[in-house]
């Protein structure tokens, strides 16, 4: 998967992962994918909620230890 942009929100607490994600999404072209990396456990539900609310697409997500990864395609 081509990742056009990576949002590294490691160590950031709510609401920063979402604010950083929203900011990055503005710079993406339609169809491009961004990777969001977060360690705030709240991001597990917050990122998918943001994706739904903004009409984007969650392509894939994974979890390794405390590290959450989300691949989001801009619609």
């Amino acid at each position, binding site marked *: 998967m081509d990742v056009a942009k990576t949002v590294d929100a490691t160590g950031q*607490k709510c609401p920063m992962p*979402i*604010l950083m994600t929203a900011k990055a999404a503005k710079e993406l072209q339609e169809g491009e994918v961004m990777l969001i990396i977060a360690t705030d456990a709240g991001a597990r539900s917050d990122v998918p909620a943001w994706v739904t609310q903004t009409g984007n697409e969650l392509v894939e997500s994974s979890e390794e230890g405390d590290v959450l990864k989300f691949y989001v395609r801009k619609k």
Partner: protein
Amino acid sequence: MSDATTGEEMMTIIAFSGDLDKLWPTTILASTAAANGMDVTVFATFWGLFPLVKDGEKIGHDAMTKMLAGMNPPGFTKAKLSKMNMAGMGRSMMRKVAAKNNLMPPEELFEMCLDMGVKVWPCQMTMDLLGIRADQMLPGLGDPAGAATALARMAKSEINLFI
């Protein structure tokens, strides 16, 4: 002032409290709603005006309002905890805990709100009542407004909060 809406979902927060622990939910929800693509307005009234005053501004138009401002100094950094403030010790502990846990202080979250297009409208009536002039308030705020303006937005908002 323009009350044009953008056709997006709307959220309006009546920010009544100037307490530090309530400024967090106000700024977190407002910035996140903006990140969600919502059209967000924060209508600041009564104690909620105090954080929006620039540091070091002397507010109050008579002895009583000056005394009130003396007991409750304006500015984000002066905001007290709603409980267990303990003459500022609680506030300083809470700020340390927040910093240690990477939670942004409300003044920075507030800056993010403005960056993300959150509209902040101070209440004209309480500004007059408490002796706060528009030029004493932080840059980036909207024009002072009244209850009818706030209600017009609330009537159109999917989410309305009183904090």
